[in-house]
């Protein structure tokens, strides 16, 4: 069975290590915070100017002056701080953020990512994504393997305008966990019950398949 969005987030949460500063993009990445182990210390950064982001507020406790970069109402945890955008992007460009988790419309086998614009459609802008992908040492992409029409989103070359070039390290999709290696998608794990054939069919880019590919464990 292909993974649900929650399960994609749950699998990515395993990549989050003790002491990390982590930036979460809009969509599936936001869900990752719910699955991070409780016995490790992780600080979530939101590029609009919050470090130490907590869970969504309880109903009625929301504060219009406290939102994340996706404009969702949030809370802060003890030790949190607020800062302006220049400070926020100093953290990002200065590589102080350990891990960035983003959604994507397309990823190519050399690690290019397109996640901000579909030509002809209205968008508000790229947001912090361009700075994040240009600076982050470690970028994990959470995405669906194919679009609604069934076309692959893991491509030889992206067709949409790029957000960043040669920057994605790892992809967790609803079908598989893959790593960008030698200009290819290296298959690391597959969703429980999903065959290698299914993954091959859903991947337009070049796949490296070595040995037996274990199923994703949570």
């Amino acid at each position: 069975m292909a993974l649900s969005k929650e399960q994609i987030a749950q699998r990515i949460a395993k990549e989050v290590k003790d002491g990390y500063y982590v930036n979460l993009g809009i969509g599936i990445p936001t869900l990752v915070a719910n699955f991070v182990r409780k016995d490790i210390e992780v600080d979530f950064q939101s590029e609009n100017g919050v470090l130490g982001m907590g869970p969504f507020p309880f109903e009625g406790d929301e504060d219009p002056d406290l939102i994340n970069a996706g404009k969702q109402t949030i809370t802060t945890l003890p030790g949190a701080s607020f800062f302006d955008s220049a400070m926020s992007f100093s953290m990002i460009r200065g590589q102080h953020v350990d891990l960035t988790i983003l959604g994507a419309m397309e990823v190519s086998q050399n690690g290019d990512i397109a996640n901000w614009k579909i030509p002809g459609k209205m968008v508000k802008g790229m947001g912090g994504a361009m700075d994040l992908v240009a600076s982050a040492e470690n970028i994990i992409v959470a995405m669906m393997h194919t679009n609604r029409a069934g076309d692959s989103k893991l491509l030889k070359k992206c067709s949409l305008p790029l957000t960043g070039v040669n920057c994605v390290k790892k992809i967790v999709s609803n079908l598989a966990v893959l790593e960008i290696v030698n200009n290819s998608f290296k298959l690391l794990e597959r969703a429980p019950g999903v065959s290698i054939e299914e993954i091959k069919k859903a991947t337009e880019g070049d796949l490296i398949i070595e040995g037996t590919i274990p199923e994703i464990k949570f």
Partner: protein
Amino acid sequence: MHLLEHAFNADFAFVKAWKGDAAGNLIFKGSARNFNPNMCGAAKITVAEVEELVPVGSLDPNQIHIPGIFIQRIFQGNNYEKRVEQLTVRKRN
């Protein structure tokens, strides 16, 4: 490879802060700080709207986010209706 972005110069900047005094010192609230402090220094004339305009001397200098030198006009707004664009909450147990 690098990309040099030149500083942005504006004639006017309009910013919204939480508290301010007649000297133009500003304090922002929560994540509403955002680009506001940066724009204060980027414009020839910065107009600041504050939720609470307090007498000079009543703000703790340690707590000021933007010194008044960057602010040319200040006023207290009223009838605030703060809208939430995306309400995300969790249920109380």
